[in-house]
């Protein structure tokens, strides 16, 4: 399923490596017709991994790879990035001493704003720049400030749609998201 097959190669000769290694590498590449990328996040980044389906009648949305969840407690607030298979993968709370040390209150708007900044930074450091967000936001509330800060921090709160390979008889051919020629 995760296999990748070879299509074609190009030659351009300006050789620097010793002849033996060249021969070895050339032979290696010649004989290789499939490689496997074991990175479990690769297909999600390439937009071809499947998302959980079959829950569209539920109120709770489950069709995502990563989603944002916020837990409000009376005295603090915690935010996490939740993966549909692996559960919470990044967790940040105003209860953590790293954040708590500099905050005045742990659940006021300023706390939400700073939580958003820290979460955005942690997400980008962990290679997650797109998460789905199904939180209902009231205008002018704390949550709006939190979400705005996440967006300012460089997180896109919408996941791309899944790329499905078109069948030969289908009407359109959607653009391949991983095609290097697009950039």
């Amino acid at each position, binding site marked *: 399923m995760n296999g990748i097959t070879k299509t074609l190669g190009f030659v351009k000769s300006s050789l620097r490596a010793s002849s033996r290694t060249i021969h070895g590498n050339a032979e290696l590449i010649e004989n290789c017709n499939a490689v496997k990328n074991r990175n479990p996040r690769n297909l999600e980044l390439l937009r071809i991994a499947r998302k959980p389906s079959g829950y569209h009648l539920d109120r709770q949305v489950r069709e995502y790879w990563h989603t944002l969840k916020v837990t409000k407690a009376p005295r603090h607030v915690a935010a996490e990035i939740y993966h549909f298979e692996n559960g919470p993968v990044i967790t940040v709370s105003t209860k953590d001493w790293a954040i708590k040390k500099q905050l005045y209150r742990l659940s006021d708007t300023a706390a939400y704003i700073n939580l958003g900044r820290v979460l955005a930074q942690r997400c980008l*450091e962990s290679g997650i720049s797109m998460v789905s967000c199904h939180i209902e936001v009231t205008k002018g509330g704390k949550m709006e400030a939190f979400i705005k800060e996440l967006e300012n921090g460089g997180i896109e709160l919408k996941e791309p749609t899944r790329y499905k390979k078109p069948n030969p008889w289908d009407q359109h051919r959607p653009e391949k998201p991983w095609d290097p020629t697009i950039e």
Partner: protein
Amino acid sequence: MANALFRIISSELIATKGQQIRYGHRMRGKPPGVARSLEQRLEELRPYDPALNFKVDIGLPAVRRSRSEILAQQLERRKKIQSDPNLERLARHLQLRIDLDETQKIWQQTSAADDCRKIADHYGIFKDLYGDAYFTPRVPLNISYTINDDGDVSKVFRGNILKPLETSKSPQVAYESDPNTLWTLLLTCPDGNLVEENSEYCHWFIGNIPGSDVEKGELLMDYLKPIPLSGTGYHRYIFILYKQDKQLDFSAFKKEQPCLSLKERNWNTYNFYKDHQDVLTPAGLSFFQADWDPSVKDFFHETLGTKEPTFEYDFPPPYIAKQRWFPLRMPFNLYMDKYRDPKQIHKEYLLKKLKKAHPFKEPEAPLRYPNAQYIDRSVPSWLNLEIRKDRLGWGRINDV
């Protein structure tokens, strides 16, 4: 009279044949609440057996600190903050911005190791490198690549995305350590091995590093820039720092430098760790992801002197039902096309395209109103549709 009789009979017949009749409501299966949900049923498909599925911790133990002491310090600090009118005013006016560098620093000392383990597990790093073992990276690694002469750096964290062009020269690695200890640093890539799918490529191997002075370590394999193959997506490049118990003899791993043979770079962390598990302990972890960029192509052509392999994801073929002798109510051309050799269909479209192409003339301008073109009346309706589809660029014509 006869007509009315016919109407009654026919309406009775239709009522039983064509119309849907409800015979009351009957529940299929168990009622909701009693029946298992889809989630529960999926959970049952992956059973957890504690005797088989347990993981082994191979890392350094956590440094125990007196909790009451920490709490006392924290409480003192909190009290000070709570009585700070300046901070209160900033918070009230929503202008309180905490210092992110300070936050990062304290996080490194408190919960970073566990958070890093969690995210590494999410990226499948322990599974692919150590099988059923894992470790908590107790020694924070600070790895930065210098991009240009102006001193701009790109840092390696826990899976952030870097381009091969940025990472073409060996990075600066820093960590805190006692100068009398010895360390081993490895950079491996478990993805996209050209020979065995369960092997890795070793991109950098330095052994017997005294303290944190990476330069003074024994360079066993020189730095090889990331080579994420075209079309294979994002590869993980994993830095692992091992703590050595004593001076080790790594001469068996020493390669002629520069080591450009991919065959010699073949690596298996599982076997390496298995051989050295008595004297090595994984202590630090940091990794990034890289995908193809033009510098990889140049590297293959100019440094390795070979062709650049290009790959494409192997999608499962579409489901096509078994062909029937009498496919009722099916458009015959579309139905037959499904069972023809796809290469033959492709060839037909290609020939049609080449027939129009002239070697010396400009290609024909696209039709301005493709649906307003005359099609001869004698053309059968299915062919009419096919012509329209080709003009609009729908369907198989896109594959050419």
